């Protein structure tokens, strides 16, 4: 319940934060919303000696338009992502997924960027961000660097972000004419996803023109269900066609086994939930 002692700094700018981070080296830790970090510090599973609080850094919170994309600040709380009109209009998948993160109190405090950098395979934001083909904007000592979502998630709690970098924004393309749904499966409401499916579908006439499917907790990183996407592209907008395509959902996944289900169960869930997510996203 009581973390190890640490030093604390609350910089006002990204530049200050970067120099503090450089100074702290291995023993430094960035604090965003703290909703994942603080519990593990309380259990002493993490004991940084320097905590750099991004809560007072200007310009990191909020959603704004950036041409054909939205720019979501890393320090934007989940609640704001879930209720933001721009997100609702252009990337409703993110709004829907953000609304399922943990519970309301955590959504008030926890941040979009913090959850992505934490990269919990059971977290609800990585798969939608992957499906939406977002770009991560990282600030570092050498300036800004951009990483595609497909390259960002590298393993359990591991991302492409370097130790001396800070995620400042996520750039998400605007999607117009797409339907979206995030289908989350848990045993109790507050739980981390056992499996979840992020789906975006563009329908033209009676046909599925394009689909983007991301899977939560089906591997050490979020996974694109590319076989499903390929099978859906050009398929008729029918339940049977969607079911047939969804039967490929577990291809290329490597889910873990735990208290909530073994790998075989997760593979099965991925198929069922993909079908349901696509059906809902397509408005069937």
């Amino acid at each position, binding site marked *: 319940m*009581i973390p190890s002692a640490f*030093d604390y700094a*609350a910089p006002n700018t990204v530049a200050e934060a970067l120099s503090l981070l450089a100074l702290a080296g291995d023993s430094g830790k960035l604090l965003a919303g*703290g909703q994942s970090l603080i519990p593990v510090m*309380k259990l002493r599973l993490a004991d940084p000696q320097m905590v750099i609080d991004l809560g007072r850094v200007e310009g990191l919170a909020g959603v704004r338009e950036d041409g054909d994309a939205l720019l979501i600040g890393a320090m934007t709380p989940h609640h704001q992502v879930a209720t933001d009109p721009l997100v609702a209009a252009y990337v409703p998948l993110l709004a829907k997924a953000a609304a399922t993160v943990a*519970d*309301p*109190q955590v959504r008030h405090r926890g941040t979009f960027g913090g959850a992505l950098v934490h990269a919990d395979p059971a977290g609800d934001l990585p798969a939608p961000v992957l499906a939406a083909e977002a770009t991560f904007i990282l600030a570092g000592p050498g300036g800004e660097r951009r990483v595609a979502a497909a390259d960002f998630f590298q393993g359990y709690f591991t991302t492409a972000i370097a130790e001396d970098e800070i995620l400042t924004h996520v750039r998400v393309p605007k999607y117009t004419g797409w339907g979206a749904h995030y289908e989350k499966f848990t045993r109790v*409401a*507050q739980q981390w996803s056992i499996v979840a499916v992020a789906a975006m579908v563009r329908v033209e006439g009676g046909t599925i023109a394009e689909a983007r499917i991301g899977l939560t907790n089906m591997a050490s990183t979020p996974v694109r269900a590319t076989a499903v996407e390929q099978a859906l592209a050009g398929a008729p907008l029918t339940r049977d066609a969607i079911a047939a395509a969804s039967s490929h959902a577990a291809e290329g996944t490597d889910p873990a086994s735990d208290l909530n289900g073994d790998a075989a169960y997760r593979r099965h869930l991925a198929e069922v939930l993909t079908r349901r997510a696509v059906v809902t996203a397509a408005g069937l």
Partner: protein
Amino acid sequence: MASSKTITVEVDNVSYTDDVEPRLLLVQYLRERLGKTGTLIGCDTSNCGACTVHLDGVSVKSCTMFAVQADGHRVTTIEGLARDGKLAPLQRAFHQCHALQCGFCTPGMIMQSASLLEENPHPSEQEIRDGLEGNLCRCTGYQNIVAAVRAVAEGTVSSDSDETETAGVA
């Protein structure tokens, strides 16, 4: 030993300035430094919600926040909810609907319910239940808590704080 920080926090309409260790959680600051023991600690993993307070008007778990993060902010606890000696509608509703037994989850439940109604003044039963997903209760089975929140939303809470009997059972 890590160096302490000076913080100024407005809690329940009173401004406090204190030196705190950075690792001091907001809930510990409230309980141990300010004597605001009405806010309780039920777990160490941010699951139970007993420690819920409002930070600048929205609900947060005060066990999952350092006191230093509250510097310059406004905190409302269960002890600051009643105004001018009058109980808040949710407090009356929890009493009138028998929405508490042991009372340990109650401060957090009431604070989260207030935040929920602020964001959604007319929630359905399902929206109330979903809005309380971050607060655990072991006594009531939640039904009367849901009824209490609904009573406030529907304006059916009696304004008489001294009422001693309920006409019907929820």
